[in-house]
């Protein structure tokens, strides 16, 4: 539970601290996607990423109320969490491996784009407006999600090498020194 709570807080921090006025879509996702990947890698339970994302999303919704309501704000984090939970077993369950983590992070962050689109439609933003910059936004979200996955994988590798209790079996399986 400690890890889950910690990751949830990191999601909020990633949302607030890393946000820069650089007009690059999705850049803040690097940190919270990395946090989700790390959390899912450490807490190897079926719905752990979804739970972390739910708690993080609720914190964000509470601290930064949005005109579109808490549900959509939370969905922006829960949907990536669910994607991560769904993909992790199919990717061998090892998010400390670079390729699976990068792919999982990219797919998870791409899910946020879908929620953003739904949010725009609910707010009656014309489709013509939603379409502007959609390609770049999608590509950037995927890229930053991949970067977050990579970062998460590298941290997990370090944690495995450090033989933290939750990952000791992975260290043994890898024959890690």
């Amino acid at each position, binding site marked *: 539970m400690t890890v889950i709570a910690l990751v949830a807080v990191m999601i909020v921090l990633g949302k607030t601290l890393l946000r820069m006025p650089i007009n690059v879509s999705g850049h803040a996702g690097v940190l919270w996607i990395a946090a989700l990947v790390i959390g899912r890698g450490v807490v190897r339970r079926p719905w752990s990423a979804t739970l972390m994302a739910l708690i993080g999303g609720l914190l964000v919704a509470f601290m930064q109320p949005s*005109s579109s309501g808490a549900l959509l704000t939370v969905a922006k984090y829960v949907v990536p969490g669910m994607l991560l939970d769904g993909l992790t077993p*199919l990717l061998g369950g090892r998010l400390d491996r670079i390729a699976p983590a990068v792919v999982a992070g990219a797919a998870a962050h791409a899910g946020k784009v879908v929620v953003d689109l739904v949010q725009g439609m609910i*707010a009656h*933003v*014309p489709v*013509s407006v939603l379409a*502007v910059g*959609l390609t770049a936004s999608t590509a950037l979200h995927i890229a930053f999600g991949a970067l977050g996955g990579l970062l998460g994988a590298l941290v997990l590798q370090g944690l495995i090498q450090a033989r933290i209790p939750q990952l000791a079996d992975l260290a043994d399986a890898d024959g890690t020194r």
Partner: protein
Amino acid sequence: MTDNGRVTRTMRTRLTIAAVTLALLAGVTAAWWFESHTPAPGAATGPGTSAASTTPTAPASSGVYSVKVTRDGRLLATFDLTQLEGLGMKQVVVQGRTEQGPTLLAVLEHAGVGSYTSVTIIGSGAKDAGRLVLDASDIGPDTVLDIAKRGTVKVAGPNITYAQRVRDITEIQVR
């Protein structure tokens, strides 16, 4: 785990990586197709929305971006992009960025708003809080509705921080 089991798991992992990668590429391609086949914002305008007209009209068609001005739930005016541009463009520099668009005061004046105590800016909320309340004293001649490249407006001004800004404005509620 047996060697066969390990091989199966490895194959499944690789297949999943390939499938997800293809899916993501397909997603980007779909986004590109959608963006390139959707008319630009403001391309479809209804009657009475000529470039020379600044008179607010009845609610625009669902495919055209517009900003409503309301008071106590009553619609005062609707402005599409052309009409907003017709109110006069002002340039202000906020947080090192140049913002350009009609002033909020001009929008309120053309909507027939007399006295007011506060204004609530409502946006889609997709990339920000989507809501900002401004007291009358916060609204000055440098508070503008910046016309963004994506064809929507966002509120900007010296009293509005980056975190407070509302993009894709859909409604201005006057109190």
